[in-house]
């Protein structure tokens, strides 16, 4: 440590026994010095009152953070288990206070300890402080081992060098040292060395992240989700005689809820089913949802054939042609079920009731394209009654 010989930090004196240092501390305190310190290799009894200290208030830090931790973790457990994701576990209430006690206790201790220690070291002591003037002095080396030291700082209003040296000598110190402040060191964050260091850190972080996420996680055993010892459909099997991993149902298997459809495979059956569903609001909403999912990609959102797949795929015809308006409900149902021309069958994707709901919704779309004069008067009346302006 380079020292500035013009800037005195203080006068440091070494004493040989705990009795001497206690006497010295009492005298210095009685003389009215404020900025002085006693350095001893271990806490010497009676020194606190000799230097006029009050009892340490660190306990309040522990108390405050302990209670804060308890309140936080209780609230957190209540929020996670009763609000964010309520789960009934073992028939206990969501807010199971007795079962929350252990974690509340542990967290209280944890935060109490960490806050107290951090508060003491970083806030109260202002450590780390390796640049303090009394480091690297003969004085420090001695008080670290077997001597008892007292240092009076030059900043003390009563400080006069000769007087202080005289006082410490009279108290029985045989070793008095003048401690000078260290030269101020200036660091610039734009030093090339530091920039290179930052660059290396950035490259290392990026590379290790890349390798971890893109290479390492695909190596065994981390790929246990990706590569499992099991058959995957569409792959060749070395086990089954037909070399297919995917198993098809046994002949004659009937799926749950299966009801045979009498006109399977017929594009234009002579007779068809009649619509079992009434066009209620609920049915129409279901029909709209399914229509938009399954039909609109080709037929368009309004069944007018203007779809988002136009140009990429043979366009679906408009459903507002006279031919389709004249279709019975059962005929439309049959087209959805069996398919028509290049339109495939949708019976695996859409349930029977959903198909009938779609038929009802198509009827709504057709009516909206070709309204009767009575429809307008009806809407006007509804608007008048409700006071709203539903557009035609």
């Amino acid at each position: 440590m380079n020292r500035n010989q013009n800037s005195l930090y203080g006068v440091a004196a070494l004493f040989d026994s705990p009795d001497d240092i206690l006497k010295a501390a009492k005298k210095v305190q009685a003389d009215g010095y404020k900025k002085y310190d006693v350095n001893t290799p271990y806490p010497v009894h009676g020194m606190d009152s000799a230097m006029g200290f009050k009892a340490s208030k660190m306990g309040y830090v522990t108390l405050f953070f302990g209670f804060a931790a308890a309140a936080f973790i209780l609230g957190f457990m209540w929020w996670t288990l009763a609000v964010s994701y309520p789960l009934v576990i073992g028939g206990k209430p969501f807010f199971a206070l007795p079962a929350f006690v252990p974690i509340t206790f542990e967290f209280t201790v944890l935060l109490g300890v960490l806050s107290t220690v951090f508060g003491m070291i970083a806030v109260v002591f202002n450590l780390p402080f390796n640049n303090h003037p009394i480091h690297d002095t003969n004085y420090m080396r001695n008080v670290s081992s077997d001597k008892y030291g007292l240092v009076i700082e030059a900043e003390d209003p009563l400080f006069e060098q000769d007087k202080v040296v005289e006082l410490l000598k009279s108290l029985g110190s045989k070793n008095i040292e003048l401690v000078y402040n260290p030269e101020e060191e200036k660091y610039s964050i734009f030093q090339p060395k530091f920039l290179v260091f930052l660059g290396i850190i950035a490259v290392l972080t990026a590379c290790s992240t890349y390798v971890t996420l893109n290479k390492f996680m695909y190596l065994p055993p981390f790929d246990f989700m990706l590569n499992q010892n099991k058959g995957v459909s569409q792959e060749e099997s070395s086990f089954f005689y037909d070399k297919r991993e995917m198993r098809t149902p046994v002949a004659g298997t009937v799926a749950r809820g299966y009801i045979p459809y009498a006109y399977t495979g017929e594009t234009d059956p002579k007779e068809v089913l009649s619509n079992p569903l009434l066009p209620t609001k609920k049915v129409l909403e279901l029909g709209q949802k399914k229509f938009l999912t399954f039909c609109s990609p080709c037929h368009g959102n309004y069944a007018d054939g203007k779809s988002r797949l136009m140009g990429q795929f043979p366009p679906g015809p408009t459903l507002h042609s006279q031919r389709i308006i004249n279709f019975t409900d059962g005929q439309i149902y049959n087209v959805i079920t069996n398919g028509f021309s290049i339109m495939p069958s949708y019976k695996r994707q859409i349930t029977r009731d959903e198909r009938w709901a779609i038929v009802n919704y198509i009827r709504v779309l057709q009516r909206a394209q070709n309204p009767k004069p009575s429809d307008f008067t009806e809407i006007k009346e509804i608007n008048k009654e409700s006071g709203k302006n539903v557009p035609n």
Partner: protein
Amino acid sequence: MTKDYSVELALVEGNPPLRELDEVISAPIDSRPSHKYHIALSITGSLLLIGAICVGLTFYYGIGMWGNNIPVAWAFGITNFVFWVGIGHAGTLISAILYLLRQHWRTGIARFAEAMTIFAVICAGLFPIIHVGRPWLAGYLIPYPNQHSIWPNFISPLVWDVFAVSTYLTVSLVFWYVGLIPDFATLRDRATNKIKKTIYSVFSLGWRHSNRHWVHYEKVYMILAGLATPLVLSVHTVVSWDFAAAILPGWHSTIFPPYFVAGAIFSGFAMVSTVLIFVRKVFDMEHIITLDHLEKMNKIILLTGSMVGYSYIIEWFMGWYSGSPFELFVTLNRAFGPYAWGYWIMISCNVFFPQLFWFKKIRRSIPATLIIVILVNVGMWFERFVIIASSLSRDFLPTSWHYFKPTLVDLGILFGSFGLFFTLILLFAKTLPVISITEIKGVIQGAQPTHGGEHES
């Protein structure tokens, strides 16, 4: 020989000058390691390597490498976990509870015991993570806002365990480090080597032995001791709840928390004794870690051993008094069933041999102490094994009864955990002061003012 019990015995024999204490305590750090040290390190390192290989096999091939199977789904993994957590308890007991009880003799052994706590908890903490099989998924135990938007089940004893053990490790580490700061400062001011000086400067945080700091430091040390005391009791209580909260006969018992805590202190002191007997000899610290220390620890082993023995008797009583045929079956099955050999090893090592400490000659004989404490360690490992394996292997469905046999990988991981523990101990003994320099200076004769000083502590 008559003895005046009103005078406290000297805690450090021979009353050496303070500078000599510095030299004795930092001698292992300053000197180059001897051949013996290298041999010891190579043995523990080999054990550690065996363990690492077995853990690697477990991670690669899965938990199927172990002997665990339904119904004995918890076997060596949890036995070792409970065993190591138990070992860890002596450290905090010595450093915190004996501190609060003003037992100044603790100074000579506290640092070492605290270090053992940390290393034992590290060993313990590994086992649940290994037992998960996919250890990188153990992160889900931490409550953080994740993509699945689910949280740990805070009312499960296993999650309590995570909080208890991780809190215990953190608090022990902080407690240990706070005690080490002044010692780092002393080492820093002794160091002549520039690299050493830099390292010690960093860890000492620029500590100045200032009395303006000591006043808060002592208070905080007491607060930490006050918080660590209920913590140490809570940790093994929570561990015992892993068992007691289950409905399995032989586990579902209210005596488990005190029984586990007593057992933990028992095994912890045995392990501290085992290690200290070697350390005081190898590092010439027999005048600081004295025979009196060992005798006092033997008394605690005798006390806690008797408590453990009492718990075994209560288990028999409860087997009969509960009126439950399942409880009675489990009690009888433990003593006379397929794991009877484990049970009787446990009884003889934990109940019978420690009772020899009633004799002062045996308490003060180092070879006898060493043999008994090693037996206690063995017995306490078997206690956990018997509790876990005997209860699980005979569950409610006789068709699924199954005799657990460990595989080589199981044994390898067990030995590996000892390798890890002793490797850490050896590294610690060679790099950090094994005795608190600051505290030991404060308790030798003539360290405190003879007059004028109020005795506050």
